[in-house]
């Protein structure tokens, strides 16, 4: 990474470069970055930061830690992008890194039983919530109901076994295909389908009493 001689491949006209990068697919953006266009990396960050944050947050349940891990993902991408096999999908590679980091975090946490999924999830304060979630047109009791429902859903997801939750989040939140999930989680297709089926059934069972 460091030894790549950075040169401006695209003319340095701010908005045009950004627009051109925005119009490119991931693979082209990666190529631009490897060709020396540093701004291409910002484009990758813009594309993936929210998606990765949600994925990691739903997997580990700790918002602050999720942000740290997402940053770690981008640092690893920056360092090792020259090693990325460009015949493969960039998003799968990024999610694999994020998935491994999330798994490590959960493993470390399981060694330290004082930190629990639900505990850290409750630390997600109201002021951390994105502005778009605050629906000003709703009545206060509606807003309360929505918040309560969100908490119930998050707690129900947290109750799923780790390997089920992982597959469940990748499929239901990120919309990944079974094949991609298999690649990201390093499992075979059959395992992915079986885990997803079980996760869906378990989640439905857990949340049923709250929503019926």
């Amino acid at each position: 990474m460091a030894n790549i001689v950075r040169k401006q491949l695209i003319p340095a006209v701010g908005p045009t470069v950004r627009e051109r990068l925005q119009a490119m697919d991931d693979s082209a953006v990666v190529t631009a970055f490897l060709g020396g266009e540093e701004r291409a990396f910002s484009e990758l960050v813009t594309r993936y930061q929210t998606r990765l944050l949600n994925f990691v947050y739903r997997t580990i349940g700790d918002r602050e830690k999720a942000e740290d891990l997402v940053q770690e993902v981008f640092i690893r991408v920056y360092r090792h992008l020259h090693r990325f096999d460009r015949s493969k999908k960039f998003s799968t590679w990024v999610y694999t890194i994020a998935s491994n980091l999330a798994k490590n975090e959960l493993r470390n946490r399981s060694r330290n039983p004082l930190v629990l999924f639900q505990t850290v999830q409750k630390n997600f304060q109201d002021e951390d919530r994105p502005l778009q979630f605050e629906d000003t047109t709703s009545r206060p009791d509606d807003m309360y109901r929505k918040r309560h429902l969100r908490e119930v859903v998050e707690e129900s997801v947290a109750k799923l076994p780790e390997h089920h939750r992982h597959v469940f989040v990748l499929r239901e939140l990120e919309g990944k295909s079974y094949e991609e999930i298999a690649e990201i989680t390093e499992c075979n297709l059959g395992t992915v389908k079986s885990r997803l089926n079980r996760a869906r059934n378990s989640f439905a069972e857990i949340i049923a009493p709250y929503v019926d």
Partner: protein
Amino acid sequence: MDCREFSEKHLAFVDDTLAGIELVRMQRHMAQCEPCARQDAKIRRALLLFRNLPPIEPSMGFNDRLKARLQEAHENDMLLETTRRNLTRGAVAATFATLASALMLAYIGNTVYQTEMTRDVVMPPVVAVATEPDLTPITISTPAIVASASAGLAIWPVALFAEEAPVRFAHSRFELAKLNR
């Protein structure tokens, strides 16, 4: 279709990846089997709730922190590379120094060894052999003096010897006579 088959194919049914005929079979089963229809509704409702969770956005300082961490990582990489390069150079220099030292030591060692070799020349032991004295009696008198003179002795001792010869011979003859007696 029975409930077991319905349950097995439900994943693909929810994901809309079932073939047309299978889809119709699933729908028919649901129309006939209330528990399966209820289970299907329960799962779809739960998934709907999960999929509609509001996404969380990165915090305000996220990008600044990321930029700082990237910068730090970049600097660390540069430092690491410089250190690695220096270490490589150092290693090469150390290798050369070691080789030179080894050569020097080998040379010195060789020189010392050779000197010691010349100082302590090991020669084969000298064995002294004593020849037995010839005890045969001398019978001829005069030609013996001539013969001894031709054996490489200086002339003057030969001359002295010649002067004393009759006395010697007389003695020897006398001694022989004594022995004979």
